[in-house]
């Protein structure tokens, strides 16, 4: 399969690889996927609690090149956004930006899910969400 230049670029130079301390109240962590499905994404945001702006984002991904690229791109897009703006990122935006073929659309869906899970985790820590609303999956 041929990869788009953007996928190759993210694969070869992944942005914002790493981890934050999960217990930090400013950090929201989203982990989605399963090893037996061949994809696991961990996406973390670090939020400025006064402004609600995501100051930093990091990821680690087990998955194909498109999954790595999708999560790498997501961390780039998350930085500088408010937590509510972050929830507006759609998987189709990722598909378009990376020119993902149909068989790789699930990678973008996973990235969107990871963003949502990370933001939900952050909001939960801030006490914004009730436990019922947390169950996105």
């Amino acid at each position, binding site marked *: 399969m041929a*990869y788009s230049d953007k996928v190759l670029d993210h*694969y070869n130079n*992944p942005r914002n*690889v790493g*981890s934050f301390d999960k217990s930090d109240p400013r950090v929201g962590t989203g*982990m*989605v*996927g*399963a*090893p*037996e*499905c*061949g*994809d*696991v*994404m*961990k996406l973390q945001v670090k939020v400025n609690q006064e402004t609600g702006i995501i100051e930093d984002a990091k990821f*680690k*991904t*087990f*998955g*194909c*090149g498109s*999954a*790595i690229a999708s999560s790498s791109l997501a961390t780039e897009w998350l930085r500088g956004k408010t937590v509510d703006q972050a929830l507006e990122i759609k998987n189709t935006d990722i598909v378009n930006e990376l020119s993902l073929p149909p*068989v790789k659309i*699930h990678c973008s*869906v*996973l990235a969107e*899910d990871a963003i949502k*899970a990370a933001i939900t985790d952050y909001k939960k820590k801030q006490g914004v969400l009730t436990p019922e609303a947390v169950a996105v*999956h």
Partner: protein
Amino acid sequence: MKLPIYLDNHATTRLDPRVFDVMKPYFTEIFGNAASRNHSFGWEAEEAVEKARKQIASLIGATAKEIVFTSGATESNNLAIKGVAEMYAEKGNHIITSVTEHKAVLDTCKHLEKRGVRVTYLPVHPNGLVDLDQLRDAITDKTILISVMYANNEIGVVQPIAEIGKIAKEKGVLLHTDAVQAAGKIPVNVIADGVDLMSITGHKLYGPKGVGALYVRRRNPRVQLTSQMDGGGHERGMRSGTLNVPGIAGLGAACEFCQKEMPEESRRLRFLRDRLKDKLMTELDETYINGTMEHRLPHNLNISFAYVEGESLLMGINDIAVSSGSACTSATLEPSYVLKALGAGDDIAHSSIRFGLGRFTTQEEIDYTAAKVIDVVRKLRELSPLYEMAREGVDLSKVVWTAH
């Protein structure tokens, strides 16, 4: 050293230039139809075909008359299994095969199941080998055929064909083996192994694509087949169709080179394969070999690099041609059914790489490959949340994943 490096010799092999030289005259000079009995064009073509028949027979311990030419191993497997099922329908309707067979065998069996044939798919041990007791127990008075591959195309494990042959003889059941990966690479002998039908193909042993053969035993017992391709009655009526003379000449020559060079070639490839294995296993932790090393083709290595997904690894080593059992690399988006059959879990399949060495593989290429794989696996593990969790002491099998 030239890039990219080809290490996918279980998929296909490069045509040996010496084989190509043998084939060349049969395209434009000696172009006759081997079935033309009344002129020299036909006689010369027939001579080439008969020479190839002897070369192929010699490689597998058969006689020339027992070789039936086909278009390749998929056709050979179809002809053997469907041909026996139809011919021996009065005697029984039960076939035994194994879960790790090539699709050309499995899908042929599935086709027959729709037509009322009963098929037993034997499981394999975690080392990839079938269980002989289970095989023996599966045989009934309705069993007409056992079809077990000689060596596996993904994990390279070599099945105990001679023992299976003994059981088959004892019970009066025919034995077919798909020997595509084994013939020309390790000694196979239809007499010593008690094989009644054997499939081989040209393009896995440095011969051309589009040509293969089926060995059909003529004595003790004389095996009969219902033809699956009807027409001019070629190949003793078992496979009609004008013979692919250049391809057949190439297949014959390829078999002869393999037979002559096997001892030296297998020793050299085993050395290189073990060198690759040792480098990878020494430099990388949590790296697992799929299938037994004890009964294995000398040129095969199938390794899973835990916490690294196969397709992303292939992407990082894109100047090396190998294949992966990862779902992302397959048309069906399913991980390898062969690796799943070993019972190691889907994650092992997703993380697997198959290295298939061959006649043209050099030590320089192996050293380059080892260094590159080690480098990329390390990089991808730095990126892997699973590797991070494992190092933190998390038991990944106990994690509740949000599968999608």
